């Protein structure tokens, strides 16, 4: 009796347990950061020093799943602060960074941003990576009349008066990449992405552009974050015979996808994979081998051949180690600090409204080339580059836009984008 009784109970128990298991898996994916030990948090000094320093917030995920990408951006921002201080600081004062850990958890980003603005009274926050973290900080900086410099390429369709965007808008990465592919690689596109806001928005834009510029979409697939079994999707890709896979997968899935693509016998000679979320830092984690010959679109590569960049790479490596690499968001984080400092110098104060006013049209010779803040939408003029991944994990530049491209987050200058939103 006990035994069969148990069997009946077992199914009930199992249902419960599975629910628990899914919860656990959920934790692993998104909230993983909450269980990790906090690393450095506020190191603000006492208030009496406030007279001689200008406090700025540096808010990135230093723990949790995003730490892999964001820690290096934090490092770049601290490098810029150190350099500015060594050159005398701004307005005769030293910049004092207050470092906070967003822990890969969006509510934490909002909370820490609030703390930085209200308690530490920072003049500006440099931070964020995922769109979710930006969207969490947006209302906080708007309510508290703060400033946020956001360093990562994103899906566009946003412009907050309190945020400066130093990463690419879609017309500075995705749109030119699609045009280039149509011209050089073929008309048939397969869209593959992780299932969340960036890939879905990006693919909406790409579909509209393909329709307008004579391309053809032969497939569209989204997989959950962390998905690792791509054999079926690869079969579908084989059947659809695309010329190009436009890859907006994020994180771990890229490793599995590229490994399995190679195992299925598909190389860059059969089709081209264009990625927009894989930079030098990620290649280091994936291993360059399965990626060789595929493409990525960014504004900056470590190999970008400019004197200013050579100096930047050398300084970054000297400070953080020979085996470290620089990449696009790292560079955008770095020059963001400089742009802000320039604006403050011009305004003569750290007052947010005056800095914003002064920032219009401010230029800076960044490692990627000349960057300029667009007075209209507070995005940045940037160079666009397409590179091919080499066996050493670096990019060989195949194409660039010759001159910095004006940011157009709402794609107003494109007829085909009218109905997007």
């Amino acid at each position, binding site marked *: *009796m*006990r*035994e*069969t009784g*148990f*069997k*009946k109970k*077992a*199914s009930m*128990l*199992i249902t419960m*347990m*599975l629910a*628990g*298991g*899914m919860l*656990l*898996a959920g*934790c*692993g*994916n998104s909230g*993983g950061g909450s*269980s*990790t*030990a906090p690393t450095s948090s506020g190191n603000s000094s006492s208030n009496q020093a406030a007279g001689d320093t200008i406090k700025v917030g540096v808010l990135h995920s230093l*723990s*949790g*799943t995003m*730490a*892999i990408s964001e820690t290096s951006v934090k490092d770049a921002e601290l490098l810029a602060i150190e350099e500015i201080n060594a050159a005398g600081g701004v307005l005769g004062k030293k910049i004092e960074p207050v470092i906070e850990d967003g822990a890969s958890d969006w509510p934490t980003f909002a909370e820490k941003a609030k703390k930085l603005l209200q308690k530490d009274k920072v003049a500006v926050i440099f931070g964020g990576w995922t769109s979710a973290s930006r969207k969490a900080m947006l209302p906080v900086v708007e309510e508290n009349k703060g400033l946020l410099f956001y360093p990562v390429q994103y899906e566009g369709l946003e412009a907050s008066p309190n945020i400066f965007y130093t990463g690419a808008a879609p017309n500075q990465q995705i749109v030119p990449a699609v045009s280039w592919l149509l011209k050089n690689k073929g008309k048939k596109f397969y869209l593959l992405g992780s*299932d969340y806001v960036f890939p879905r928005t990006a693919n909406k834009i790409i579909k509209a552009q393909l329709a307008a510029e004579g391309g053809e979409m032969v497939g569209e*697939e*989204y*997989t*959950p974050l*962390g*998905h*690792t*079994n791509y*054999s*079926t*999707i690869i*079969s*579908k890709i*084989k059947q659809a015979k695309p010329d190009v896979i436009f890859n907006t997968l994020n994180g*771990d899935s890229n*490793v*599995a996808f590229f*490994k*399995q693509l*190679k*195992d*299925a*016998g598909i190389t860059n000679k059969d089709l081209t994979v264009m990625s927009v979320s894989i930079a030098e830092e990620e290649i280091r*984690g*994936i*291993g360059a*081998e399965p990626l060789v010959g595929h493409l990525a679109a960014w504004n900056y590569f470590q190999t970008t051949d400019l004197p200013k960049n050579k100096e930047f790479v050398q300084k970054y490596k000297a400070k953080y180690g020979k085996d470290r690499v620089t990449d696009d968001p790292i560079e955008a984080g770095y020059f963001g600090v400089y742009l802000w400092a320039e604006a403050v110098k011009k305004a003569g104060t750290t007052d947010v409204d005056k800095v914003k006013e002064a920032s219009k049209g401010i230029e800076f010779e960044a490692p990627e080339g000349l960057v300029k803040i667009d007075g209209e939408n507070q995005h940045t003029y940037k160079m666009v580059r397409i590179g091919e991944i080499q066996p050493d994990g670096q990019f060989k530049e195949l194409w660039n836009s010759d001159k910095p491209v004006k940011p157009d987050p709402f794609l107003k200058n494109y007829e085909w984008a009218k109905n997007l939103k």
Partner: protein
Amino acid sequence: MVQLFNGLSFSSILLLIALGLAITFGLMNVINMAHGELIMIGAYSAYMTQIMFSNYLPKSLFDFYFVLALPVAFLTAALTGWILEWALVRHLYGRPLDSLLATWGVSLVLQQLARTVFGAPNVAVMAPDWLNGGLEVMAGVVFPYKRLFILAIAAAAVLGMYLYLYKTAPGRRMQAVMQNRAMAACLGISTRKVDSWSFAMGSGIAGLAGCAITLLGPIGPSIGTYYIIDAFMVVVLGGVGKLSGTLAGALGIGILNTLFEYGTTATLGKVLVFLVIIVFLQWRPAGLVQVKTRVLD
């Protein structure tokens, strides 16, 4: 044809990760939430073996590291499982809910430990050269060697477990204990020893699975959580406590999942599989293969 192979190869992965669970959960009735972390330990063992080979041994031997990685992963995970059983699980036999919570805690601890030791970023295991590429059966139809290799490992593991359970003395003792603990104890079997032995076996197979999946994707501290749900699903669908059930469960879920995914999308495919399983369990709560028990009702 390709789909069938995809399904079969997905099934083989499911089977490998579920086999260990079939012992600890299916036979011993311990809900081991740390099973996923034992998989992770196996994966990191493979990674460590690779590092050892590339750092300390001549380059010509590197291609053979994976052969050694398999037993290393098995033994490391088995040892961890043995310690886990000795320190924690044995105090919780017959209390499934308590063991669920306690092992869940262990799983979080192990994940954090891995994060501390190996760092949060994923590490890559390089497949040896002889596993790169694939067998071209027809024009355009390629069976990757890695998948075939995993299929072979899974088959070997099932065969090995079958032989162990049905042909060897310790295996038979294990079965006896599972079927009727009191009677087995009366007949002079040390149930304590059998318990810890079985748990270590199940853990070891999890390590083996971990080693195999390094061929497919990234290794990270939370790698186990991606697979644990599927593993439980396989054991539950197959029928708790039967080797053949696990086999049937893995085949069923693997092939269904691949077919659904092919017809719809990755996310929807998974949802459909879960729906089918839920409906099926309503109809046959004991799963595909039911156990005949010797305990009187």
